[in-house]
């Protein structure tokens, strides 16, 4: 075991007061995490090896402008009972009620298309040797509400590096599990199933883009996208595809589910942009879940310093 001197401990690793007071529950959760730890998949976020600089930058503290509003973490109970996950129903409470029976082990991910190592990977193999890091990100839903969630995951680019995209690859397409037996929402035709999402390769390789396996220091609950989901903090939440079973590298912009369902309302890029309204509501402000007042929405959800350069020269009103 590594024994550190006090001044070696970065501030991000110090247990927050709230967690200290809540330590019994944390210890309980840590117990259930033992299995995850043993397989090297999950590391308790509070002790994670994440560079503190990353967290602070990702949290956008530099960006928040003249009158910073607090970015308190959304309570775990809220983040796990207020979800958009139409595979389990269209009401916000449906996923937490209906996702419990989803079997997330064993889980495999097909990697195909323009890669050197296409294969069906067992999830553990796909992530083997990659250390999960904790990232506290704002999550902005296209419906104009938001949360702050501490994710556990690995940068998508590390996983992509493992499968080695060919030089001709320009986009990444993701697909959710299709199994109406386990996902009751798929028995209806609310959306064309299975759910698909996509990113440009440079977006996918951006260091902020995560493949998440956990949150709040625990394994990912089913309703939040277990066992593997995408987190792209500068885009609207629907880009964060859940229960991923396929990753395909392509040279053409992939079709995405919400864009297919309503192209005038949901674009391929879906970057958080207060200047581009949804046709039926303004995106200028958002309501942080748990608050009554709205707060201003930040361009790129406050991560503009890190990601704006990806879109230089583009008309983000047209490519919304």
């Amino acid at each position: 075991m590594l024994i550190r001197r006090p001044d070696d401990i970065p501030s991000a690793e110090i247990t927050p007061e709230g967690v200290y007071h809540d330590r019994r529950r944390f210890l309980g959760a840590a117990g259930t995490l033992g299995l995850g730890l043993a397989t090297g998949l999950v590391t308790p976020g509070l002790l994670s090896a994440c560079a503190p600089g990353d967290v602070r930058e990702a949290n956008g503290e530099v960006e928040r402008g003249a009158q910073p509003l607090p970015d308190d973490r959304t309570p775990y109970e809220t983040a796990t009972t207020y979800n958009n996950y139409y595979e389990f129903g269209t009401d916000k409470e449906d996923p937490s009620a209906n996702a419990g029976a989803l079997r997330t082990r064993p889980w495999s991910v097909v990697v195909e298309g323009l890669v050197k190592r296409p294969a069906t990977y067992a999830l553990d193999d796909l992530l083997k040797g990659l250390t999960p890091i904790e990232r506290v990100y704002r999550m902005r839903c296209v419906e104009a509400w938001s949360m702050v969630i501490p994710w556990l995951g690995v940068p998508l680019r590390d996983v992509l590096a493992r499968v080695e995209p060919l030089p001709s690859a320009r986009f990444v397409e993701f697909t959710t599990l299709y199994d109406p037996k386990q996902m009751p929402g798929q028995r209806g035709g609310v959306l064309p199933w299975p759910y698909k999402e996509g990113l440009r390769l440079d977006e996918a390789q951006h260091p902020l883009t995560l493949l998440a396996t956990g949150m709040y220091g625990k394994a990912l609950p089913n309703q939040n996208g277990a066992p593997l989901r995408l987190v792209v903090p500068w885009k609207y939440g629907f880009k964060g595809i859940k229960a991923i079973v396929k990753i395909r590298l392509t040279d053409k912009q992939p079709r995405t589910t919400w864009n297919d369902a309503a192209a005038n309302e949901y674009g391929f890029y879906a970057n958080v942009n207060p200047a581009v309204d949804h046709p039926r509501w303004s995106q200028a402000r958002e309501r942080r879940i748990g608050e009554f007042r709205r707060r201003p929405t930040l361009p790129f959800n406050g991560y503009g310093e890190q990601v704006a350069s990806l879109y230089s020269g583009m008309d983000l009103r047209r490519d919304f």
Partner: protein
Amino acid sequence: MATTALAPKLRKRLVWLAIFLASAAPALYLGWQLWLAWNFRSSDLGKDPVKGIEHATGETAIRFLALTLAVTPVRQLTGWNWLAPYRRMLGLFMFFYASAHLAVFYALDLEMNLGEVATEIVKRPYLVVGFVAWLLLVPLALTSTKGMIRRLGGKRWNRLHKATYAVAALGMLHYFWSQKKDITDPLLFSLVFVALFAWRGVRAWQRRAAAVRPLRERAA
């Protein structure tokens, strides 16, 4: 002697009170839930209580519109003519819930930002539709008193209050349009309205047929 004379009056009062309280109950309940949410306690309004109360008031308005329009068919089916005077009360409660819906949108959702209300209503067609539906309700509510009915005369008053059908159509369009993707709820409600409209259509057709028949018989 005195009790038999008083009983029908008392019973009428009690029925009135019961219907009034039942109609006011959703408002009291929603008010209580909003108070809980405001104090960061868990409530039936969900994790986003502003959205929760916005949807709940709108849906309650639609329910009361259906109830109002159901009074006449129910009377005709069952002969319960004592229901007739309550149509006005239900209609006024409908106006109350529709106004609450608009007030929640203005005060809680848009935080009383008048400029934003104006631009939002102009920019979003489904809001225009909802707002026009509410505007149509205003003259109906204003002319709901006995004095106004007398001043307008029964025929003109009846014609004016046919606007309720337009309110139902616009209200349902607003409801459908506001949904992100899942239109199950507005679809179920619209079935109710289709049934209520169909009943009226059939009755009108029967009345016309009944009015024509004696003429034919006379001609024969």
